[in-house]
């Protein structure tokens, strides 16, 4: 199997697995328990917190653990919106957010908040003039992702953070697709809240973190115990937190070198596809992107059919984001970038990872060319021949 869907999830790093094992076997105590057996688990959680803080350049107390990137996004967006309800009920986000932010904003709209969905350029970059124009006295939060899970396009979050800060408005960024991929200190971006997840950076599933700058107003979205300074109730997933910290330490340390390797592979992949298949459009190619991601549209061929064709050849890629697979609707991200419905329908996402080698890329290009040619032969919609 050739796995090229690392934006959906990544394999567990052997070092993360090794770090987790003691906490699944021997040290299974509850970190909140009042005896030494619990304290060992507590110490492991706090060490992990310090390591993650070190990896992103924050204070340990600014890291909250929770169960998923989606939960971190919910806590950030809903937690700030609810904390500042008396100050204003306007949120600003973008048209290309992940469902975790998008649907949280939609839910808040239904509860009486007003939300602005900023447009993006044809390259998939949020329009900063539209951002400036959208901000008002009622605006309490700007939430814009660091990089798109579908196209990999990196948003100008430092500039967005500066704009928000000048107006005294809080800024959250979903960095699930950049954490461990870009050699940047997430806490230095200028955002007040940053979400990132374990299983996207070779850690385990079921764990994520929310960076919350000291002093940021936030209320919990779940009621329960006082774990995570009262902001995230529920017994800590100790083994997963430990594995997350180990994986994050590796990923952030290797981000620069691995990023260069992946960018070279990805660029070569795209060049080979363009040479082998006519009628290809690469979304966001002219914008800064995370180094592992490629979003390709093939005229006259359907994305789901391409994915199945490659699957039958032993290659895992995705249409858009994994969450929308099986939906009839074409990607809202690609439509926001101005692709036609047919172009969006003909799109796949290829995302490389630490095990990807040149031979995998070459085999994928061959299978892709064959699959697209076959589908175009069947297709009633005009694509390119050849």
């Amino acid at each position, binding site marked *: 199997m050739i796995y090229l869907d690392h934006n959906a999830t990544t394999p567990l790093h052997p070092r993360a697995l090794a770090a987790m094992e003691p906490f699944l076997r021997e040290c299974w105590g509850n970190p909140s328990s009042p005896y030494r057996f619990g304290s060992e688990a507590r110490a492991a959680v706090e060490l992990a917190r310090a390591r993650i803080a070190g990896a992103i350049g924050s204070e340990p107390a600014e890291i909250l653990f929770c169960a998923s990137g989606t939960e971190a996004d919910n806590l950030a967006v809903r937690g700030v919106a609810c904390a500042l309800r008396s100050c204003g009920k306007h949120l600003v986000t973008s048209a290309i957010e992940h469902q975790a932010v998008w649907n949280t904003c939609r839910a808040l709209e239904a509860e009486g908040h007003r939300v602005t969905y900023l447009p993006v350029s044809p390259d998939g970059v949020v329009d900063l003039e539209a951002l400036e124009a959208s901000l008002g006295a009622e605006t309490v939060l700007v939430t814009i992702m660091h990089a798109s899970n579908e196209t990999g396009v990196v948003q100008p979050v430092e500039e967005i953070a500066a704009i928000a800060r000048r107006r005294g408005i809080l800024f959250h960024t979903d960095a699930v697709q950049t954490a461990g991929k870009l050699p940047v200190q997430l806490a230095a971006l200028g955002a007040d809240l940053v979400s990132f997840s374990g299983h996207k950076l070779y850690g385990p599933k079921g764990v994520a973190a929310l960076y919350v700058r000291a002093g940021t107003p936030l209320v919990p979205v779940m009621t329960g115990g006082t774990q995570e300074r009262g902001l995230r109730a529920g017994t800590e997933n100790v083994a997963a937190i430990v594995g997350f910290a180990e994986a994050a330490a590796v990923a952030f340390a290797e981000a620069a070198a691995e990023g260069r390797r992946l960018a070279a592979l990805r660029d070569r992949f795209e060049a080979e596809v363009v040479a082998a298949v006519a009628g290809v459009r690469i979304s966001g190619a002219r914008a800064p992107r995370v180094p592992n991601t490629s979003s390709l549209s093939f005229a*006259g*061929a*359907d994305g*789901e*059919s391409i994915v*199945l*064709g490659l699957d*039958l050849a032993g290659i895992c890629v995705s249409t858009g984001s*994994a*969450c*929308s*697979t*099986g*939906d*009839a*609707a*074409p990607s809202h991200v690609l439509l926001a970038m101005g692709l036609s*419905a*047919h172009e969006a*329908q003909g799109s796949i996402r290829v995302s490389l990872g630490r095990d990807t080698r040149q031979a995998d890329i070459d085999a994928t290009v061959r299978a892709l060319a064959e699959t697209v040619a076959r*589908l175009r*032969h*069947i*297709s*009633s*919609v005009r694509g390119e021949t050849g």
Partner: protein
Amino acid sequence: MANESDPDAGSLEGMPGPVLFYNDVVLDHFLNPRNVGELSAMEADGYGLVGDPLCGDQMKLWIAVREGRIARIAFKSFGCPGAIATSSMLTALAEGKTITEARNITDDDVVAALGGIPEKKKHCSLLGVRALQAAIDDWERRRHASAEPR
């Protein structure tokens, strides 16, 4: 690990969510669709073009009718694996049938002939049925418009 004492273990049948599984018959029709192509204006007695506005799938279908039977049928489809496989099976079912028999082919017939398709893909099977109906309608229009009966 599937556990034989638990009838639900290891089965994804009826699972909610986006997981899509296609059986071998569907995969065969996806990989080797029957009757792909076009009939020329000289060859075709009826033509149908239908689109599914929900998902953007599209199908073109041509028929040649001899002595009240579908002598030749050809199609082209743009769409998901479900659309391709059901289009292919529809043409396989219709080939050689009388016009009346062909008219009576339903989306359920297509799904049954494929041995089932994922719930989310059932609407795809309407695409071929509607394209065939449109081609037969076209054939009937041409027949009535024509001075000479075929």
